[in-house]
């Protein structure tokens, strides 16, 4: 029998997880090793199905932990034998202490930026293509618009515009984000995927800043999410 590992922390308390269950309905347990505690549940099987329920459970358990303190979440599907877990924690102690220090007092928030190619501001994106966005076959319409826009603007121009969007978001969040992890995808509709580490208590300020940018930029749709456990800030710094 292996353990499904949800997260590791140095401020986790057993009572937070009393009576609660995790992936597959197994009861949650807190395993203490040295300075660390790991939230686990027993798991039968060799691999974790990536079902809607399991993914939701994984995140729910981590959110439960996040409500009290900021843990380092493991990736979905992390299975470990008890003895191995102890060995890992002992071996990685210094790294984990540093990683926990990095996220302490913080939560992760996310922002996604979508080009609104065929929607409310088609004219602002491509002046001569406004009417195509009103086609009832909206999926095909948007694909067409995107392909057309790539052709017209060229990849360089798209890249530069996408980087401009990322810069606008970064500038908007200045002084709020302690760290950021940003992916820019000029060719897609989802042009920027960003994760930010922010201090607890400032979640609404984050959402409001993201919304404000959305109000200013009619050519973009912005979507803020969180608070999340620091999924994007638990691994090695990239």
């Amino acid at each position, binding site marked *: 029998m292996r353990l499904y590992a949800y997260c590791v922390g140095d401020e986790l308390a057993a009572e937070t997880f009393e009576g609660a269950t995790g992936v597959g309905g197994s009861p949650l347990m807190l395993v203490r090793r040295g300075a660390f505690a790991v939230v686990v549940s027993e798991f039968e099987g060799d691999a974790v199905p*990536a079902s809607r329920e399991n993914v939701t459970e994984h995140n729910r358990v981590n959110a439960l932990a996040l409500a009290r303190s900021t843990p380092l979440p493991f990736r979905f599907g992390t299975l470990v034998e008890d003895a191995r877990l102890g060995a890992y924690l002992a071996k990685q102690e210094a790294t984990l202490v540093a990683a926990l220090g990095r996220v302490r007092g913080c939560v992760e928030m996310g922002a996604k930026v979508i080009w609104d190619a065929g929607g409310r501001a088609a004219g602002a994106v491509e002046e001569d293509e406004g009417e195509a966005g009103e086609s009832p076959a909206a999926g095909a319409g948007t694909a067409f618009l995107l392909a057309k826009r790539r052709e017209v603007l060229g990849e360089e121009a798209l890249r530069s515009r996408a980087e401009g969007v990322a810069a606008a978001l970064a500038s908007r969040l200045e002084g709020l984000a302690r760290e950021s992890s940003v992916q820019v995808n000029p060719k897609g509709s989802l042009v920027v995927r960003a994760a930010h580490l922010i201090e607890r208590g400032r979640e609404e300020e984050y959402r409001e800043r993201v919304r404000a940018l959305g109000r200013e930029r009619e050519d973009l*749709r912005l979507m803020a999410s969180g608070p999340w456990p620091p999924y994007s800030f638990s691994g090695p710094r990239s």
Partner: protein
Amino acid sequence: MTDAELILDGEEELSLLETLDHVLDRGLVIAGEVTIAVADIDLIYVGLNVLLGSVETVNEVLGERERRLEYLRGLAPKGGE
């Protein structure tokens, strides 16, 4: 009301997509000591692909969310430009 139900479903799907986006390829990974073993990963994308590929659906959900926010703020809804 059917439209409202569709939008609620959209919200749920978006929320699941956001969760997937966070838990599937991010988080602490320990090579050698811990196994990342995920099965049936394609299953969860059945039904979600439509949404992933459809900017319109995302826009609808976000548009509805914006309208609700504006309503909550007591602002007049935006005219569809």
